[in-house]
């Protein structure tokens, strides 16, 4: 297997709605930004991997077909990846594998989403229709007719976790503290959707309930329209591009993925509701491949769909003990951006988590959210000289899809 390096990244502005652009233009914007970042032309790119979550949001059954020419990838191989919330991660995995296998030397991995063109004629707003479209991710026989939503599904896992590990994610103050910290981080992201917002702990605690006792309105991720691109290169090509740009290469050290059974149950390989095994297994695989442990990693871009899940996932990734994820705040394991400023390395024993503001403040254009996370991770690794960083992705019913990539700064 060949070494693979990340040599370029670019994202669009993250917006609740882009009336100025269709997904064609968003993908083109992100491609342009990515190629300019790496100082490469479209001719040099061997192939493209698209991350697009669902056809209904794009309003086209093969949306990648109309993108190929627009983003300068005509006559090149192109494959679309779609894996629920974890689409971005799995698209990255496919792009990395393509380089590692020797099939291509330079692969563009581009993901994005339109979402809020969906419209509910009854409430005359977008949200119920967006939620309904996402709910179509559940099977039409058993789950969808019951009225499942993404929030319910992830909260089912958090409530089950709380059944088995009480007094951990229950403290609203802890969750609100994390939100406040993420908000401050999101304020630094020039492309972040909520970069101008100031959300206080008190506002979180007073925001309306979505699902008690773990989900208030200000504890949930956004719907975003936008796109993000990454360029993965073989060792030789990466070194050549790095000389051109003067930017260090970020090497892919480990990639781990795991999808749990769709069906929850007891024993066997059924999905245990009280854990996110997909996250745990994926991370263990990524660490093993990279030859690192969580102690080596001080920068994480985590797929924070919901803040209670953020805490559980940090436990599953091995950064804090399961059942004691509140240590993130109580033991100051989550680094405070006010202390780090723009260029400081996190202190020993601390982790900088979601400096982009994450999916709650930065942006969540589903097919490319993990590319967005990787764009931020690369920026922070270079600016702060952080050796190892991790990007996490999750998705599907009850968080059954999970993925993790460990990166190393050259």
């Amino acid at each position, binding site marked *: 297997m060949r070494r693979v390096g990340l040599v370029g990244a670019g994202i669009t502005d993250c917006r609740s709605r882009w009336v100025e652009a269709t997904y064609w233009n968003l993908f083109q914007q992100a491609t342009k930004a990515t190629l300019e970042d790496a100082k490469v032309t479209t001719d040099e790119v061997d192939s493209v991997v698209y991350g697009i979550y669902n056809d209904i949001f794009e309003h086209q059954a093969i949306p990648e077909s109309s993108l190929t020419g627009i983003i300068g990838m005509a006559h090149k191989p192109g494959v679309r990846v779609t894996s629920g919330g974890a689409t971005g991660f799995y698209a990255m995995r496919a792009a990395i594998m393509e380089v590692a296998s020797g099939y291509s030397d330079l692969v563009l991995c581009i993901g994005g989403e339109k979402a809020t063109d969906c419209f509910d004629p009854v409430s005359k707003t977008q949200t119920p229709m967006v939620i309904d479209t996402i709910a179509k991710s559940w099977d039409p026989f058993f789950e969808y007719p019951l009225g499942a939503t993404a929030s319910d599904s992830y909260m089912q896992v958090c409530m089950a976790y709380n059944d088995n590990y009480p007094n951990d994610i229950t403290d609203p103050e802890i969750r609100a503290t994390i939100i406040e910290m993420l908000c401050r981080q999101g304020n630094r992201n020039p492309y972040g959707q909520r970069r101008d917002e100031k959300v206080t702990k008190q506002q979180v605690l007073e925001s309306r309930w979505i699902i008690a006792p773990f989900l208030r309105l200000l504890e949930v991720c956004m719907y975003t329209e936008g796109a993000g691109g990454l360029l993965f290169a073989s060792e030789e090509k990466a070194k050549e591009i790095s000389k051109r740009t003067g930017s260090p290469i970020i090497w892919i050290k480990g990639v781990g993925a795991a999808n749990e059974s769709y069906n929850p*149950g007891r024993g066997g390989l059924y999905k245990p509701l009280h854990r996110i095994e997909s996250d745990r297994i994926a991370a263990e695989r990524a660490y093993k491949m990279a030859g690192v442990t969580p102690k080596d990693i001080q920068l994480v871009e985590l797929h924070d769909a919901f803040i209670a899940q953020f805490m559980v996932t940090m436990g599953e990734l091995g950064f804090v003990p399961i059942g004691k994820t509140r240590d993130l705040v109580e033991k100051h394991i989550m680094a405070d951006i006010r202390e780090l400023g723009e260029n400081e390395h996190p202190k020993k024993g601390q982790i900088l988590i979601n400096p982009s503001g994450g999916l709650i403040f930065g942006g969540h254009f589903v097919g490319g959210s993990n590319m967005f996370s990787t764009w931020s991770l690369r920026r922070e690794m270079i600016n702060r000289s952080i050796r190892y960083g991790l990007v996490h992705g999750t998705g599907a019913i009850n968080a059954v899809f999970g993925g993790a990539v460990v990166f190393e700064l050259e």
Partner: protein
Amino acid sequence: MSEMVLRPEFNLPKGTSEVLGKDGKTYLQFNSSMATLYQQTYGEHSRFFLALRDAKLIGSKCTQCGQVMVSAATWNCPFCNFAEMKEVVLPHKGILAQTAPITIFPSQSFIGQAPFCRGYVDIATQEKVASFLPSRLRTTTGIPRPGVFVKGIELKLVFKDKREGSILDIFWVPMKEIPKKLRNKAPLFESELNFENPKLPKLKINKNLKPVYVKLLQSLNEMSLKVLKSPRAQKDLAGKKYRIGVKTGGGDFTFIIEKNKMKVEPKVAKKTDFVIVANNPKTFNDWINDGSLTDAVIEGKLWLPSREAFIFLPMLDRLPRSIRRDGV
């Protein structure tokens, strides 16, 4: 006309409209849809849904490892290289595998059904390995609220009287709410239980709450006067006619809403549309101070007898905000 897959109001007029961009320029948007109609086969799941239609619950049991799938999602065991699975008839009782979330804000297709509760039921409890059945959960004690559907409670399977072959043909009710004589009845039908007139929960009368109640009545009366001066509040109440009894641990009252006005009587009137219950009258004081009665329901502080009572809450929740916005 029978119920249709797409509701008549779920549509948009053909055409385009203008929308303003962040850059101040005008853009066009077009109304369209991506609706596909289906006659989707239940295929291998048909056995399960045919059984439901016959008021039976079946699962599939592996002939090699003995694990049971509920529902019978497959007839070939995924753990034993697809060994044959045989039909097993399942009991009409189960255990709630984990505490279940309550849906308050559903997706577009389920608006009008909230609040509802769905969870996973462990039915093949005698088996070492078994999957859980996703199901709707219902209570005979009012609308679902925290503390009812918690991990480990025993549940009774209930069938709708009229079934079509759908996962919504069944739901589960806490066994302790089922009259003793019906607990072993199988099948048990919805019409055999009383969901329409739930008993009021027992109130904790507390002398210390009396002053809170007195202050609440005073605040409510002040609010009634403010409504008279607030066009927004009057618009909120326009066309509404309700008498809602309220019981609290400090004392009772009745909200009377009619002719765009709100009035409060310091007792539960003889005739009410419904009665709601909160142990602490402060729940309503919080609401007056820009809080939310919907949030109080979600937190379990306010008991409601029915969905109809729940639908009424957003109107009440708007009132304090409307008064504030009108500067009254």
